[in-house]
């Protein structure tokens, strides 16, 4: 093998093209040399066209004039050079699934790029039959139970123990970063634990669509259909991204029917209740509601603390002091991903400085985030944000109007003020047009009840909470 020709061409081009462009368009090309032909692999059609249009002539002229010997011609194609190694699993349980065979059509010849030095493969369930598989890190042991996800977890265990029988489909919905994907993987892993021969396929809806588009392009749609319909459990994440994709919905509809009729388990997640997913065909929405629909709500403080302590052990093998967990939990309320991001930041700082993790240390590590949040979460800003959200005026919130379109947003604003600020109830009441503290107390209790009973109130409250605390 001889990669010197490509290296030689790269040296010439690096002098000619600004560094950013060179790194965007040229360096990522992977080169396979077959005798006197350089085959350059681009990751997609767009890059291929761009390189062809802007750089190919120049590359060819270097081949002739610059003394870069060893090859007579250059061709461009879509694909990647074959390689055998992958980076080891990152520290957070994000996949690192084994890289399958190269997408280029032939593997012979010299390979000048790849993942380089050998590294361990990730801790993934072996994908013996080439199914996109579940992540073993996401199981019920690492799923922290709280009031906000109790029902969803219990339903997940039932489905994992009795796939295809109890609740089909299992539809899990909730805001971003609350653990829907984790729960979905946990069910898939439980199914495989109970029956190691079970074929469990996990796919993000976007991958389902991309796979289908590719199959249509290559005329292999029948194979794709057979592949997806051959499983014992199909897990599709974020089905709201099917919105507006009619052909994908059509295909998924038939896949759903085929699996349902043969009593194979289907598990779906979405950011909202099935009937409220916009851009989905009614027949799909109705099927999504055939089984059991469960929600995951934002975790309360105690659950956030438990999640932090569990993640700290799981990710860094560190027992996080409970007072630190409470401190982080009080300041990061929006979702579990941001909770994990904050924990990572504190841990990285601790590793660098060698300091013990204390409340003061955490405060310093998260200082910019806490400052930004403090600027965001003032009584004035809560009122302004709530008024904008419900498309009413701030003056309405402060007025004595008692019709529901005003009173409900006012109660929500009061409840948010109590949750997100340290102001006393009389101060909060005062800021809402001089109301009594008992009115604030009533409002917060009423909203707590309504969040349990009314999906819309819960969603509005959570959206506002996310806006104000992220």
């Amino acid at each position, binding site marked *: 093998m001889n990669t010197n020709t490509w290296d030689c061409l790269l040296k010439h081009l*690096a*002098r000619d093209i600004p*560094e*950013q462009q060179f*790194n*965007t368009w040229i*360096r*990522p090309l992977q080169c396979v040399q077959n005798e006197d032909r350089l085959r350059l692999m681009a*990751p*997609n*059609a*767009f*890059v291929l066209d761009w390189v062809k249009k802007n750089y190919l002539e120049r590359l060819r002229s270097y081949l002739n004039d610059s003394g870069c010997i060893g090859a007579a011609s250059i061709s461009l194609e*879509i694909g*990647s050079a074959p390689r055998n190694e*992958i*980076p*080891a*699993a*990152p*520290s*957070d349980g*994000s*996949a*690192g*699934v084994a*890289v399958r065979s190269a*997408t280029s059509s032939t593997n012979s010849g010299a390979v000048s*790029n*790849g*993942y*380089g*030095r050998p*590294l*361990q493969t*990730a801790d993934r369930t072996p994908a013996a039959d080439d199914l*996109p598989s579940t992540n073993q890190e996401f199981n019920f042991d690492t799923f922290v139970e709280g009031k906000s996800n109790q029902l969803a977890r219990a339903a997940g265990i039932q489905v994992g123990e009795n796939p295809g029988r109890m609740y089909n489909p299992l539809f899990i919905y909730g*805001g*971003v*970063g609350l653990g829907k994907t984790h729960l979905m993987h946990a069910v898939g892993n439980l199914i495989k634990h109970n029956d190691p021969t079970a074929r469990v396929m996990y796919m*993000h809806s*976007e*991958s389902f669509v*991309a796979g289908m588009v590719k199959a249509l392009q290559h005329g292999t749609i029948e194979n794709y259909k057979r592949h997806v319909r051959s499983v014992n459990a199909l897990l599709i994440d*974020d089905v709201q*991204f099917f919105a507006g994709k009619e052909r994908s919905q059509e295909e998924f509809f038939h896949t759903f029917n085929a699996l349902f009729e043969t009593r194979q388990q289907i598990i779906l997640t979405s*950011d909202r209740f099935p009937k409220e997913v916009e851009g989905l065909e009614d027949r799909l929405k109705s099927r999504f509601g055939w089984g059991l629909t469960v929600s995951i709500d934002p975790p309360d403080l105690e659950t956030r603390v438990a999640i932090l302590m569990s993640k700290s052990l799981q990710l860094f093998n560190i027992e996080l002091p409970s007072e630190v967990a409470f401190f982080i939990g009080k300041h990061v309320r*929006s979702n579990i*991903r*941001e909770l*994990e*991001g904050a924990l*990572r*930041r504190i841990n*990285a*700082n601790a590793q*660098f400085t060698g300091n013990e993790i204390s409340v003061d240390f955490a405060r310093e590590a998260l200082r910019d*985030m806490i400052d*930004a949040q403090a600027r965001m979460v003032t009584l004035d800003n809560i009122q302004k944000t709530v008024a904008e959200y419900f498309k009413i005026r701030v003056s309405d919130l402060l007025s004595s109007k008692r019709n529901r379109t005003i009173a409900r947003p006012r109660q929500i604003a009061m409840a948010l003020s109590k949750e997100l600020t340290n102001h006393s109830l009389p101060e909060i009441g005062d800021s809402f047009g001089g109301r009594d503290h008992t009115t604030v107390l009533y409002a917060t209790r009423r909203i707590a009840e309504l969040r349990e009973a009314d999906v819309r109130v819960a969603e509005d409250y959570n959206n506002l909470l996310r806006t104000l605390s*992220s």
Partner: protein
Amino acid sequence: MNPGQLPLGLEVRSPSRLDDFVFGDNEALLQLLQRQLQEHGESQLYIHGPRGSGRSHLLLGQCNAAREIGWTPAYLPGGDIATLSPGLLEGMEQYPLIAIDDVERLAGKEDWEQALFGLFNRARERGARLLFSGDKPPSTAGFDLPDLSSRLAWGVTYRIKPLQDLQRELLLIRIARRRGLHMPAEVARYLLQRHSRDVSELARLIERLDRDSLAEQRRLTIPFVRDRLLNQ
């Protein structure tokens, strides 16, 4: 005035490297970047800081460091690609390191946000490392897709701390050195006291000084720089 010799359009340009970067009080960031390329390193890093804080240099430097251990990284500058088709992101998950510079430039563009979200999921499934830079932290970068916003905040977020004066001097000297130009410390100090302290602007000034000093065959001295600043 003698117009001097016109310099050839050839410039000495060495690739951005992490060891050229003046980290100043950001040593922890260097450690994070180095760890990202190690086994079990951080899967995701988000670096933010104002314009001129060296974010592009850091990302390009990290790409070079990745290449030195045999990886093929992908570098995507948000400002340049935002006007192109989001199809550009297809298949990018095959690279073990994906560095997206000025990621906020893709915010508010529905098709780009969706494509970036898709790439994010595919990259994590493949175990690729992700490196982002932006002028603001993820939560205020202006993304409309909450799924994407929360994912950007998943890994370690690092705010670049501004350089102190001595560190800025060192930075100017290094920028000049990358162009093959010797800049004495007193000249660097002189520039910092009399010119914009924005690093991008200073880098452009050094580029001009480099051309002029070559054309006029003069070394970088305070009188020469004073003359150039007066005549710019």
